[in-house]
């Protein structure tokens, strides 16, 4: 089934007896095949909003559309069988095997045994589950494995839309990252429309094509791409929620090639030192970089190296860290800081120097309001 | 024996007679004695109550410390549970008969026999109740320096009250039921009205049944009230 768009039109939920609505006047549109992350503090209504799509919560006012059909026009149970539903505690049926759990919705839809039997191994493959687990019971699986089964189960009948409520929240951080990455790879393949709820802004930035920041009382504070969110938070609340380190967060979205690098004053072995010294005049980098005939970096030349007439074949200081132009900026900064260097050579395949990256470049970039950032979709983003 | 086709009318009649039997002395059918009336009812009721309370006290004495201790130490599950299961399988009639067969029947020996029915539920429930107390609370108490006895007294027992009282109520029901057939071996309780039909007549039989039922329900209500009173308000709020 092709993915469909999801549209909220002034959706509101007021629980009887509550003085504030859980969700108020929510209007946003999630394009087909996109991941929309609903993020916000506890009680902001993000889960309630998500659950309006499969009518686990009925809107008190307003409407929710999948494609151009209101969810209200469908019978609830039938509607839900076309929507993938993944929750934090997974909710696998303890009394059914993994294979039976995954086959739940196909069975409900009346798929025959052959079709179901073919689909289950496919799903296992898709979510990276060992097929040997098919006959086991949920209690025998680890948390990470259980959640993979949860995702497989949700995808089983090839739904239009996927709803995911803090799906990786109960998993340990290492496996969580792995699951996130795998889900993004999966999404690149299957391109479902996903509504993803989380309270973790970092997860939101990582996973979302668009992020809907909600504040307590169920109001939408900002609906934007991750880059927009980081660069231009709509108000104080969003700014606070995104965090004081949002500048640093932006670095996760970029690669080294995305900034203007400094020119490296290159020196070849055998060159005259006087020539090299001339290059240094006015250069941003105070030391020359020794490279070989293929412009591969060999090291930084020290004052002593330049004392002789001829540039030596070996440099006094190592070229490390050497950065790749496709490196994630955040990792590049980390490398620089770890080595205690101010700057480092940047190479492109097959190893040729293209410039020098310095910490100064990075901070200037972060400070500048109209710096360009390459807006990769999450699936293509560095991981 | 009732074989009257006009059952509802006859039944109502009989219920009326039974009530009459309870309150007014009347002529016995078979022998020339006065039966029924509040005095006799009171006597037999008191007898039943006495033996019930006696047996209950004995059962508590035997089972409660054992169950609580085992539960606290978290050992002996097999024993506690299987005694509970076995106790349920004991047929009252056989028990009463064997009592008469092997011992001199009297208040004490009867109470002792009734313990066979009263001990298992109290033992099992005290065990389960005490063991089931939130371990974190117990650990915290231990960490604060409470002695084992204090932990039992101040933490485990109060938290286990609902479960333990459940066992006490079950024990009471079992004991009352068996005390009802004690007249078979000579200890005259309310059950005598039921068992000795030739003396008391059909009205007497029904009266006996009503009286036994009322006593059982009254005891149950009393114990329920006691349980309520003994359960800490904090616990009461969480019970479904």
């Amino acid at each position: 089934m092709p993915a469909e768009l999801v549209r909220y039109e002034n959706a509101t939920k007021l629980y009887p007896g509550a003085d504030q609505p859980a969700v108020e006047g929510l209007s946003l549109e999630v394009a087909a095949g996109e991941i929309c992350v609903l993020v916000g503090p506890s009680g902001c209504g993000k889960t309630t909003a998500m659950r309006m799509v499969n009518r686990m919560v009925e809107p008190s006012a307003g409407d929710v559309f999948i494609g151009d059909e209101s969810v209200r026009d469908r019978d609830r149970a039938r509607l839900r069988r076309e929507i993938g539903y993944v929750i934090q505690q997974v909710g696998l049926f303890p009394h059914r095997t993994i294979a039976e759990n995954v086959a739940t919705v196909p069975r409900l839809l009346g798929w025959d045994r052959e079709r179901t039997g073919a689909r289950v191994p496919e799903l296992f493959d898709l979510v990276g589950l060992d097929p040997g687990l098919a006959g086991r019971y949920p209690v025998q699986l680890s948390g990470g494995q259980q959640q993979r089964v949860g995702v497989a189960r949700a995808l089983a009948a090839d739904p239009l839309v996927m709803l995911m409520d803090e799906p990786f929240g109960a998993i340990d951080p290492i496996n969580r990252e792995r699951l996130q990455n795998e889900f993004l790879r999966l999404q690149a393949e299957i391109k479902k429309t996903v509504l993803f709820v989380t309270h973790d802004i970092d997860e939101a930035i990582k996973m979302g094509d668009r992020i809907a920041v909600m504040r307590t009382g169920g109001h939408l504070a900002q609906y934007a791409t991750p880059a927009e969110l980081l660069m231009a938070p709509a108000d104080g609340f969003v700014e606070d929620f995104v965090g004081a380190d949002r500048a640093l967060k932006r670095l996760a979205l970029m690669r080294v090639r995305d900034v203007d690098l400094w020119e490296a004053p290159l020196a070849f072995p055998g060159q005259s030192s006087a020539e090299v010294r001339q290059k240094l005049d006015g250069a941003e980098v105070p030391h020359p970089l020794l490279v070989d005939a293929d412009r591969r970096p060999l090291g930084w030349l020290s004052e002593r190296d330049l004392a002789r007439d001829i540039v030596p074949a070996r440099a006094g200081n190592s070229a490390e860290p050497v950065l790749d132009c496709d490196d994630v900026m955040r990792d590049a900064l980390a490398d620089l800081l770890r080595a205690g260097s101010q700057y480092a050579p940047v190479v492109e395949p097959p190893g040729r120097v293209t410039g020098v990256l310095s910490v100064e470049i990075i901070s200037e970039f972060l400070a500048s309001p109209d710096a360009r950032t390459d807006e990769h979709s999450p699936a293509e983003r560095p991981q | 024996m009732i074989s009257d086709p006009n059952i509802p009318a006859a039944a109502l009649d009989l219920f009326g007679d039974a009530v009459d039997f309870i309150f007014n002395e009347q002529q016995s059918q078979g022998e020339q004695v006065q039966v029924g009336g509040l005095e006799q009812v009171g006597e037999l009721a008191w007898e039943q109550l006495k033996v019930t309370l006696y047996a209950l006290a004995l059962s508590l004495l035997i089972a409660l410390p054992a169950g609580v201790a085992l539960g606290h130490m978290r050992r002996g599950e097999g024993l506690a549970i299987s005694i509970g299961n076995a106790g349920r399988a004991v047929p009252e009639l056989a028990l009463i008969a064997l009592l008469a067969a092997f011992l001199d029947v009297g208040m004490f020996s009867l109470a002792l026999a009734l313990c066979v029915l009263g001990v298992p539920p109290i033992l099992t429930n005290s065990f389960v109740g005490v063991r089931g107390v939130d371990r974190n609370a117990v650990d915290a108490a231990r960490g604060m320096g409470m002695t084992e006895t204090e932990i039992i007294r101040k933490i485990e027992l109060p938290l286990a009250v609902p479960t333990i009282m459940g066992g006490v109520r079950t024990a009471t029901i079992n004991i009352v039921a068996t005390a009802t057939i004690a007249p078979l071996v000579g200890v005259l309780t309310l059950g005598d009205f039921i068992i000795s039909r030739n003396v008391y007549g059909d009205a007497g039989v029904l009266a006996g049944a009503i009286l036994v039922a009322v006593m059982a329900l009254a005891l149950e209500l009393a114990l329920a009230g006691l349980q309520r009173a003994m359960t800490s308000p904090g616990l009461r709020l969480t019970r479904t």
Partner: protein
Amino acid sequence: MTDVALLLAQVEIRDRSGPPSCQQANDFFCPGWVAENYDRYVDPVLQHLVLVGTSVAAGFAIAFALALLAHRIHWLAAPLLAVTGVLYTVPSIAFFFLLLPITGLGRTTAIIALTAFTLQILFRNIVTGLANVPPEVRDAGRGMGLTERQLLWRAELPLALPEIFAGLRIATVSTVALATLAVFVSGGGLGVPIYEQLTFKTNVIFAGGLCIAIAMAFDLALVTAQRAVTPWLRVTT
């Protein structure tokens, strides 16, 4: 009487009362007597089995229906628990005789009373079993598109099975013991031989023992059945 006449008279008396030494002496237990007279107990055992089987089956059917009702309409749970509680508290023998004017002597009266006794434990256990289903299983089930009825039969009831079986075991064992009282309303069962010779130790011990054996057999059967229908509880993690 002469000595010989006395002796002869004694022998006569002994000869007339069947296997005399056992019944007369009334020792603790005479296996010999049992071996010769066990056929007396066959019918009572069969009647007993019928009493127990019918009562527990009927009790379960009723309790199950009530539990499903209470599952749907939550506030019914407490009143139903109270009503079944009354039926449980009233001693069975009193119950028998309260029913007597209405249903008369015989097996039916016994079964009605025994059924009533099982209701509370069965009802309570089924309700508790259903209530203990993890909330996330319910949430995921609904979210996937199971109707309430599908959720109940495919997820909640299977997961409630351990609790339900526990109740069945307790109810069955208790009913086996109680069914001995059916003799008082001419309902048959093992209570008959016990009551007929109440003072004869061997008889009481044997009949009582049969009772306990039947109870254990039922219990074992139920445990086995439970294991068979709950394979997921048997796996090693």
